[in-house]
């Protein structure tokens, strides 16, 4: 009889569970619909609808243009090349971070993540110092790469290194090395053991990282615009040009649809690999797998990885810092002091106030992203969920792949009528930033939530706990650290968000990246120096946020 009662309770829990899940999804779905789907649809409709009738023939017209086909071709192949190069350079890094123990590892892991959250408008300029004229490569070998495709590819490695290190390295550090050792005891060579044991376990993580890098480079904007010069154009750059400069909304709408379809396809494949990756692996605590390098080969590998990080990642960041102190009177704090003065004229406030604005916006954006992303992750926790719910997982990632100018212009024309009259409200900036932050929250929380043993929840439910109580007593203690990491990452991403913010930031409270862009837009030593100083401050704030995260890393980290 007891058994029967348990079965009944279980069935009730299940029913209740799916209802709860739908309830949890309601807010993220509403958020996504109102602040993403609706504005994007509105701006696409503005371009493609004439007198109420859709002009879908435009799609064919646009695709027939050789310029556009060239853009599509370039977008695809540079993304493929960027992804391959990033994997080539970052995979050894992932291995080193996963398996080796060395001094300063945590600081270094935070440092390599800084580029990922910095706005390209800031870094592009500094990056020229590495590959441009008079840059390091120029001085050593007389090689200049600016306005070549190489500059774009290397900058993409710079920005996406952390994606590979965090996604692949995170998992690698938890694979039990003893499995490989066992295979070697059975007579396999070192390489064969790695290929048969570690590679299959790692494969899905590598695929997921590659797809994320492909997504980010496929939709690359600032890097291509600044480093590629006017001859190279990706879809995203072309959408910006058509919307913002040429004002051909029809062409922009067609391009937006094309990018949408492509990104949707990438995300669908990504969702599949992520699911494959979550198949049971025997994972161990990362602390137990890392050890000091042994032998000349391992030390050489470590040295090689550290050198590549120094040249590719630290050097461009270093140039920013150096230039922020390099005043006409020699090195000093003059540019930093100038940030506190109001008579620059460009702003209605002293540039230094951008720091406060940025922090406020980023905090609000983080709160929204954690609420939305957290609810979504909770709804997606159960592995054997329906197709609809799984599709929702990919849907939440879509804002990462849709042009910021499309979202920005969409906000402008869609959110201008009561009850959603938000156009000149401050909340618009955090809302746009949360669109970018929420996917990171989902991706960080989901693996941890899924790792919670479902039987614990069932047991609690059988004992009469409400779903809320189950979550509070079972899930929350286990995911608290993941929640912190998710919040931190959303915060850092919001701080650096530029694309959408620039369209909606108010002049009296610009964010750090917006302020930097405005300062760079003016002639004169003081403006340039202040831009470098503000960039350095932004970099330091991001680095501090990421360093704090290193302190609360969970045993089972998410993907970023």
């Amino acid at each position, binding site marked *: 009889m007891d058994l029967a009662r348990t079965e009944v309770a279980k069935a009730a829990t299940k029913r209740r569970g799916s209802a709860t899940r739908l309830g949890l999804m309601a807010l993220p779905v509403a958020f996504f619909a109102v602040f993403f789907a609706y504005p994007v649809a509105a701006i696409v409709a503005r371009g493609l609808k004439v007198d109420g009738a859709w002009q879908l023939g435009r799609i064919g017209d646009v695709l027939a243009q050789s310029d556009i086909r060239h853009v599509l071709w370039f977008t695809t192949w540079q993304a493929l090349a960027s992804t391959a190069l990033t994997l080539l350079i970052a995979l050894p890094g992932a291995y080193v971070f996963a398996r080796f123990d060395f001094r300063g590892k945590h600081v270094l892991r935070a440092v390599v993540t800084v580029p990922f959250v910095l706005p390209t408008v800031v870094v592009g300029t500094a990056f020229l110092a590495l590959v441009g004229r008079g840059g390091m490569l120029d001085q050593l070998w007389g090689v200049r790469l600016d306005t070549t495709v190489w500059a774009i590819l290397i900058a993409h490695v710079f920005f996406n290194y952390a994606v590979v290190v965090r996604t692949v390295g995170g998992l690698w550090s938890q694979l039990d090395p003893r499995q490989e050792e066992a295979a070697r005891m059975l007579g396999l060579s070192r390489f064969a053991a790695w290929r048969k044991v570690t590679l299959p376990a790692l494969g899905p993580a590598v695929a997921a990282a590659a797809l994320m890098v492909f997504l980010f480079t496929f939709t690359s904007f600032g890097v291509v615009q600044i480093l590629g010069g006017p001859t190279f154009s990706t879809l995203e750059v072309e959408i910006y040009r058509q919307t913002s400069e040429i004002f051909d909304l029809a062409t922009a709408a067609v391009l937006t649809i094309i990018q949408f379809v492509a990104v949707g396809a990438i995300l669908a494949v990504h969702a599949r690999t992520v699911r494959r990756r979550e198949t049971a692996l025997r994972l161990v605590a990362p602390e137990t797998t890392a050890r000091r390098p042994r032998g000349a080969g391992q030390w050489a590998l470590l040295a090689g990885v550290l050198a590549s990080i120094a040249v590719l990642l630290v050097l461009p960041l270093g140039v920013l810092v150096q230039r922020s102190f390099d005043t006409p009177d020699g090195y000093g704090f003059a540019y930093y002091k100038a940030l506190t003065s109001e008579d620059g004229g460009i702003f209605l406030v002293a540039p230094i106030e951008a720091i406060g604005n940025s922090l406020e916006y980023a905090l609000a954006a983080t709160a929204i992203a954690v609420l939305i992303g957290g609810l979504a992750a909770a709804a997606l926790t159960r592995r054997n969920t329906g197709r609809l719910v799984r599709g929702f997982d990919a849907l939440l990632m879509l804002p990462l792949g849709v042009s910021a100018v499309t979202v920005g212009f969409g906000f402008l024309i869609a959110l*201008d009528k009561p009850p959603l009259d938000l156009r000149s409200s401050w*909340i618009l900036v955090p809302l746009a930033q949360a669109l970018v932050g929420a996917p990171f929250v989902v991706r960080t929380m989901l693996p941890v939530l899924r790792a919670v043993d479902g039987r614990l929840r069932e047991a609690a439910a059988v004992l009469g706990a409400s779903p809320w109580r189950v979550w509070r007593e079972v899930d929350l203690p286990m995911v608290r650290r993941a929640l912190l990491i998710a919040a931190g990452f959303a915060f850092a991403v919001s701080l650096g968000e530029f694309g959408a913010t620039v369209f909606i930031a108010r002049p009296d409270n610009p964010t750090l990246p917006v302020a930097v862009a405005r300062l760079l837009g003016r002639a004169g030593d003081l403006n340039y120096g202040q831009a470098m100083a503000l960039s350095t401050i932004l970099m330091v704030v991001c680095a501090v946020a990421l360093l704090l995260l290193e302190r609360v890393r969970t045993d089972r980290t998410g993907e970023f």
Partner: protein
Amino acid sequence: MSTTKTFTAVVVGLGLVTLSACGSSDSGGSADSTTVTLVSHDSWAVSKSVLKDFEKQSGYTVKVLKDGDAGQAVNKAILTKDNPQGDVFFGVDNTLLSRALDNGLFQSYEVKGAGQILPEYRVDQDKHRVTPIDSGDICVNYDKAYFSEHKLTPPQSFDDLIKPEYKNLLVTENASTSSPGLGFLLGTAAKYGDDGWQDYWKRLKANGVKVVDGWEQAYNDEFSGSAGGKKAKADRPLVVSYASSPPAEVIYADPKPATAPTGVATGTCFRQIEYAGLLSNAKNTKGGKAFIDFLATKEFQEDMPLNMFVYPVVKGATVPAEFTKFGPQAKDPEILAPAKIAANRDQWVKSWTSLVLK
């Protein structure tokens, strides 16, 4: 029961987001009659004291919305024209004027003191939809140090730029994405005519002109005469920028040099004029009119140069000494009528792109 609870939580959550969003929302121009809202581009700037004077005298509070670069700001204003974000738009220039007028961005208002505006800047005289506010010249700037080191005379005219002694020295901006880039193209079109400008650009290309995407890259990364360029070890001593860039190099330097490190090739200039207008469907038309009047006052016009690095357009407004000393205004800049620009811009940019970039 638990479902109801969840549902309630969701509704409350959504409500909170919406509520907090609506709390400070007051979009759609200045609903209350004591505020006047200006929509402009990122370069808008004014001295605090001057703006305070207007607020005190008129009784209006001024709210400013900066909306990206000039092209972006105009496009956004057109998109939102049925329910505009403000009352007055400032910063549409002669290259974009027709787009704004054809799309019905502005309503008619003749500025108080229209007679004070210099005749060469007046346009749209029958309808009075826009008022000229400032002018500026897009010209090639040169790095003085480079030319004295190499004992070379800096170029003065468009014709000079295609001479062999200036090979590989000039950097300009993409005409399809940058307003100085477009201005320079229009300057050559005005100078050499519909038939001649393409040939001129072929020669310019053969003479090693470099094209980058925006002014920031051209001026800060490529041009050896600017503060940023010196740090970046830039190697192009000629750049397409503004006639007011040399004064900016002095004013934004500390300590200030005795002379500007850069100069202007005065025979390569294209004149840009910026206009302001009362937005159609503005909520506070009375305040908007008062603000346009203010933009044409001597007080604002004389404050403008050091804030936005442009020249005044009203009679008798004095230009600051730094301007006359470090950046003489071009005597005879190239000029094109907005209608002519509107009719040809897209085609010219297209031909230019395939000619120069491919």
